[in-house]
């Protein structure tokens, strides 16, 4: 249930950006959520429905781009997509890999109406 905390943080950031650009309403918010971020997109969507009430983003559309988990092998150099609980090299099977994508929990873009 920490998706609600995440949403509240998101809306504070959105309010700050809206104020900076003198926006009167926010139309669309785009997020990138990696498989290892610890956040579930469907839960985030539901939490957003609750958290946005009474904010400038009340009628905003939330777009969540769920990213893959990608590892780079330190042993053989292979790179590829893997399941979240099996971060093994897709080439040689070694566990000494670096996660190069999949941890993101990012606010990418805000579309807003300015006067």
């Amino acid at each position: 249930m920490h998706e609600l905390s995440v949403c509240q943080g998101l809306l504070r950031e959105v309010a700050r950006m809206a104020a900076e650009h003198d926006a009167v309403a926010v139309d669309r918010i785009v997020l990138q959520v990696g498989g290892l971020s610890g956040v579930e997109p469907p839960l985030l969507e539901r939490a957003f429905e609750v958290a946005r009430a009474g904010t400038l983003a009340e009628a905003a559309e939330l777009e969540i781009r769920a990213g893959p988990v990608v590892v780079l092998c330190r042993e053989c150099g292979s790179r590829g997509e893997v399941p979240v609980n099996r971060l093994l090299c897709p080439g040689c099977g070694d566990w000494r890999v670096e996660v190069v994508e999949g941890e993101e929990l990012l606010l990418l873009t805000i579309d807003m109406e300015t006067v």
Partner: protein
Amino acid sequence: MCDTCGCSITPANAHLVQARGKLERTSEGKASVEVLASLLHENDHQAAHNREHFDRHGVLALNLMSSPGSGKTSLLEATIDALGGEYSMAVIEGDLETENDAERIRARGVPAVQITTGQACHLDAHMVHDALHALELDGVDLLFIENVGNLVCPASFDLGHHANVALLSVTEGDDKPAKYPVMFRAADLVLLSKSDFLDVIDDFDPARAERHVRELANPAPVQALSVRRPDSLQAWFDWLRAAVAARRSGTAMAPRIQPDGAALHAG
């Protein structure tokens, strides 16, 4: 707020950074701003400040995470009993309700602050910051932050601590790291607690638990221990001694999985 330092840059998104803050007009004439900030930006920012605070006081701060009932508080009691003469310790306890755990710690003569989170399933950096107001850190070597018992949410929030310790009691099953990958990937040390039960439980294999941790690309040590078998605690005490020594020598320490933004900000 770090508009200028590129707080949330990761290798995966660094190519987007040049666009940060760019204002464009969409085809309908709406304003579109590229933000590229971590959704946990506020938390990460506070966490970086907490870490600076710990570093200034020379305190090693550890975040203990596990399911409810895996033995976090019992391990702290045993640790206080064994190392109380060696180190000055303090504890921050996180639970939804009650002062029970803090009272257990205080009964052993160690200062403890209880955070009751109400309905919240995790501690965050702001809660820890508030708790620090009630805790005298001068002279403290080791601060344990006992997180809310939960294998999911606490892993997402940096508290400003130096290392994550995840407990997995042997009664929970050796496949927990595969079921809760975000938590066990974040662990700098995995403790298989209640190991005395291995005598009567035939379906928990410590080697299999360790293999699941490795499958998360995590090199963290995996130690089996039980507070009812004092000898089994020696490896944990040695790990603590090494960590305190590293902190004292001024080695920069941060949890294995830590938002890139906080690291850049602290620099």
